[in-house]
């Protein structure tokens, strides 16, 4: 373990300072408790009709699971949609598309307007995929992905929050989080797939195991940069196939460790200033380290 990590560990970070400035943000979704509610079931591929609609659904599916290869113009990193939306966007508690689609159009504080589903997808491209200018709302990519999401949501009620939506909130442990403990969880549980330096693993040119930080990961504007969001994703879904096996503390520690590393700059960067960007977009956006000093190092400087 590097001395830096050990040093970081001395700094057990309590919960983020409660900023009171009104600002744009994209809060962690807070679905209600759904303990005893039965799960929505998306349709099977075998039910797809053999017509133009079925063909477009298949195109959307392909884009969703093979995004780097099929939409290189709009993907600036090594990720696919299905890295954060497991089981090709079908899995409950892994931000399933069938729970997202029926909730749009919706107001989002992130850009202070009512967003259509197309605009929501554009946001994914811009931040999670670090893709620069996203595909146009009437592009073939957005059309195919929207149709795929619509199909998965077949027979779902409109405007009703379904159980399993988003990554159900895992509350921050009373002791806060600890980066050194997170580093240890990472090396023991995550590094075998994501690499010792969060770099992911490739076959040929394409990533199979997603990079978690560095130039090929999500940028500082992506929802996953929030420690609370990453902790919830990790708790429910990681290690792959062993969701729920980490304690809440482990999930928070490792989420903080991952999100204490540099990644591409927030594309909303204000006047080239990390501090101004922090105040405008990050100071009240859940728990995150953007623009903060950790052991004398300013986090959020971005990486190319």
């Amino acid at each position: 373990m590097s001395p830096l990590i050990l040093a970081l560990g001395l700094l057990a970070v309590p919960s983020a300072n409660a900023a009171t400035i009104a600002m744009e943000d994209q809060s962690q979704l807070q679905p209600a408790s759904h303990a005893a509610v039965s799960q929505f079931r998306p349709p099977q591929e075998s039910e797809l009709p053999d017509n133009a609609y079925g063909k477009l659904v298949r195109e959307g599916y392909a884009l969703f699971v093979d995004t780097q290869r099929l939409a290189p113009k709009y993907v600036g990193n090594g990720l696919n949609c299905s890295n954060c939306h497991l089981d090709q966007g079908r899995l409950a508690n892994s931000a399933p598309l069938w729970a997202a689609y029926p909730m749009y159009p919706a107001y989002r504080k992130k850009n202070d307007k009512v967003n259509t589903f197309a605009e929501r997808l554009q946001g994914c491209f811009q931040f999670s995929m670090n893709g620069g200018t996203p595909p146009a709302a009437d592009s073939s990519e957005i059309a195919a992905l929207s149709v795929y999401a619509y199909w998965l949501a077949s027979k779902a009620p409109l405007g009703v929050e379904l159980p399993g939506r988003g990554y159900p909130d895992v509350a921050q442990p009373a002791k806060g989080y600890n980066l050194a403990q997170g580093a240890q969880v990472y090396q023991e549980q995550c590094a075998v797939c994501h690499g010792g330096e969060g770099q992911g693993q490739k076959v040929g040119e394409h990533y199979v195991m997603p990079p978690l930080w560095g130039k090929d990961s999500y940028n500082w504007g992506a929802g996953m940069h929030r420690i609370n969001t990453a902790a919830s994703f990790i708790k429910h879904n990681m290690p792959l196939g062993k969701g729920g096996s980490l304690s809440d503390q482990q999930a928070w520690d490792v989420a903080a460790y991952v999100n204490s590393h540099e990644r591409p700059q927030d594309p909303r960067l204000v006047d080239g200033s990390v501090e101004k960007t922090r105040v405008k977009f990050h100071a009240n956006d859940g728990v995150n380290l953007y623009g903060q000093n950790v052991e004398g190092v300013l986090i959020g400087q971005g990486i190319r």
Partner: protein
Amino acid sequence: MMSLERVLMGSALMLLLGNAHALEGRKIFAEGGSQPGAMPCVACHGADGAGMAAAGFPRLAGLPAPYVRKQLEDFKGGSRSNPVMQPVANALTDAEIEAVSQALAAMPGPVPQAVYRGDMPLNAAQKLAQQGAWERQIPACASCHGPAGTGLGDAFPPLAGQPAAYLAAQLMAWQNGTRHNDPNDLMGHIAKSLTAEEVQGVAQYFASLKLEAKP
């Protein structure tokens, strides 16, 4: 400052040592180790290390050295049991294990033809391989072994082109506990969730993937 002569001498020595190591590994592969019982790999895994599909003996050529080393050590330690391989591994010295692992990694293995994640699966086995069965917390085989079963890094071995009998035997070994040498039980818990039909299905699927000779 180091003279050019010394640098050259040093490089020549390094080359010679590296070569000797490789030769030793090749010798173990072809003729066996120094101790009794250390049978040559070639006897079961074929002259080019490509395995023998009919007998269920896996391909070794081109496997990552750390993976091969770990398997031989695990045969010794008992976390992977096999009546044929355990006596062989027990008879190999640590240096021989290292040498033969390096030699096998250096042997040319075939590369699987590209399979893309975006291709919609056509049958149940392919669906399991490319999408998983998440209602039972089973991720896609492809998510760790690569869409074409290429294998990833040192921990996730290639599946494409391995004999179906070998792949099925390994899944069953995880099911019955005779193999438990995977990192964090990542494979074990998946294998235990598979039905007998699924074991055969995915084994045949990966065995059937087309291979190309390494360029």
